[in-house]
């Protein structure tokens, strides 16, 4: 199996602001969010990073998508280093989180073309992809409606499609179903399955066991910025992910408060 994402000893330390120290009632000025994380995801699979709040999932995915720089270690996407070749990485991945928004003023049609241009996709390729993706995901019906007038489900579809405008090999998705109702969540999970069908590799983070069980081929459990376990669902969980997770958590952190 071909490795498409490989993290090697990724490390990220944040300096906590005064305000943040106050909110979290802590005197420490530095926080190690990711601490020597290493894992591999293979081409064509859906890999899930599973971890509790504050485990460092978002931070990891942001480093992989080159939004922030690791202060130790490195990661390779399609063979390109996020430290040395961030721009090459950016053209090969699609990154999606609920923090990344689309401007409500524009239409899906305009945004698709705009982000196509941002990734340097040629005009003809872009037109072809637009036609194909818009009809496949049913966006052509509201392609000319301003994004701010769309329902959450429609908006989610548009965000998903725009994130793969440049036909990336890897799609990285932070908390794909967080805050969505069951219908919109289904739009997302269907989309991810569809992407897998197209041969894409998908890396997602979540704290929801059922999502991992439904979607993921392999899973990495992340606790306190380190990888605690990794493998296929059968390998690490023998059918009961939840129980396994709590067992590992207790081993690492002691009793759950």
């Amino acid at each position, binding site marked *: 199996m071909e490795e498409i994402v490989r993290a090697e000893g990724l490390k990220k330390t944040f300096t906590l602001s005064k305000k943040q120290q106050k909110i979290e009632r802590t005197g420490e000025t530095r926080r190690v969010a990711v601490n020597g994380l290493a894992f591999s995801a293979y081409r064509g699979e859906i890999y899930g990073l599973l971890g509790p709040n504050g485990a460092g999932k978002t931070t990891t995915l942001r480093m992989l998508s080159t939004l922030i720089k690791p202060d130790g270690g490195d990661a390779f996407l399609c063979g390109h280093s996020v430290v040395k070749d961030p721009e090459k990485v950016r053209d090969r991945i699609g990154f999606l989180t609920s923090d990344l*928004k689309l401007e409500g003023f524009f239409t899906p049609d305009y945004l698709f073309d705009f982000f196509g241009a941002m990734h340097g996709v040629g005009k003809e390729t872009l037109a072809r992809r637009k036609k194909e993706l818009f009809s496949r995901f049913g966006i052509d019906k509201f392609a000319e409606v301003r994004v701010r007038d769309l329902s959450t489900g429609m908006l989610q579809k548009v965000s998903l499609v725009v994130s793969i405008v440049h036909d990336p090999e890897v799609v990285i998705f932070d908390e794909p179903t967080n805050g969505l109702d069951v219908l919109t969540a289904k739009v997302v999970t269907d989309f991810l399955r569809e992407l897998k069908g197209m041969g894409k590799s998908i890396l997602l983070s979540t704290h929801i066991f059922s999502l991992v069980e439904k979607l993921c081929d392999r899973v990495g459990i992340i606790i306190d910025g380190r990888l605690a376990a990794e493998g296929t669902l059968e390998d690490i969980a023998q059918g009961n992910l939840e129980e396994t997770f709590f067992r590992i958590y207790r081993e690492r952190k002691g009793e759950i408060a």
Partner: protein
Amino acid sequence: MKLAALMRKEFHRFFHDPRLVVTMLLPGLLIFLLYSVMGSAMNGKDGKNYRVYCDGTPPLVTALVEELAKKSDDTVEWLPLEDEEAARAEVKAKKAAAVLKFGEGFDPLTEGGNVEIVYDPASEDSLNFYSLVTASLNELGRRFQVDEVLLSAADAMGRSVMQSVLPLIVVCFIFSACMSVTLESVAGEKERGTLSTVLVTSVKRSHIALGKIVPLSCISMLGALSSFLGTALSMPKLMGVSLGFLGGYSAWSYVLLCLLILSAVPLVVSLIALVSTLSRSVKEASAYTSVVMILVMVVSLVSAFVPVMGDWSVALPVLNATVQMQALLGGALPVWQSLVSVGANLFYTAVLVFVITKLFSSERVMFGK
């Protein structure tokens, strides 16, 4: 290609939103209406009666009177010129508007010729009448030689007020025009998380910065220009100075004036963009920008009434434009100072764009908590 798409997006955002276009252009129109109404209220609606001494040959007077009647409901009382000294004294004392003397062979209907006009720019009536006459002569379309005799310095009343106030107003407009689009576009996009969506793509950070600054500057120039025109066109009415007064500057003065305004706009846009990038929200950014604006206004105000700014002021961003505009409106032609100011402003803009590029790449600024 990516840069072009970024710029197109910014223009599209603005020009396809009627609300934005209207809020950008409306101030100019409002100012014009407001000042004009204030101006006519202050100066009274009824036509004036000018007392004018003249050694007039009848055909000229007839032609002039006809022209004058077309232009306004002002009337002219023509008085025969007997004692020129006494007549001049009356003009100076604001009892008469002007003294007109026509040269040999003056014929407004077929030939042209020369005419001497004695007036006092310090007197509102006299100045108004002077512009009426020059405008009427122009209308007649022949070649006249107008010899002007000024009874006081040309930089009288209106000019001195315009000179110190107009640049301040212009800077104020530049700030408000730049603020309205830049805060929304930079701080707004950062706050709403639409800027990060662009940051995940492979587009260069410098292109993102330029893709904001260039279009926003063009749009702000429109706004600043609209407000400036509104003011420039209504100021004369407001102050009872006729428009002919604005025509008193050379073409070069106008070129320099425009260059100064145009160079200040991208600088102010970059400044606000910088503040916006560092802020977490539009609210925060607008608070900081207001502080910057007040600072610039206070310094400009001081420079307007303390005319001892040395040539070193050309190095001060934004302020250099105010100082040079004041000099230009005062009738001077500070060519190199103006050009150096424009250059300095462009240089500062480039520096700011560079800094903004760095900030766009800084994870603490863009993704800090």
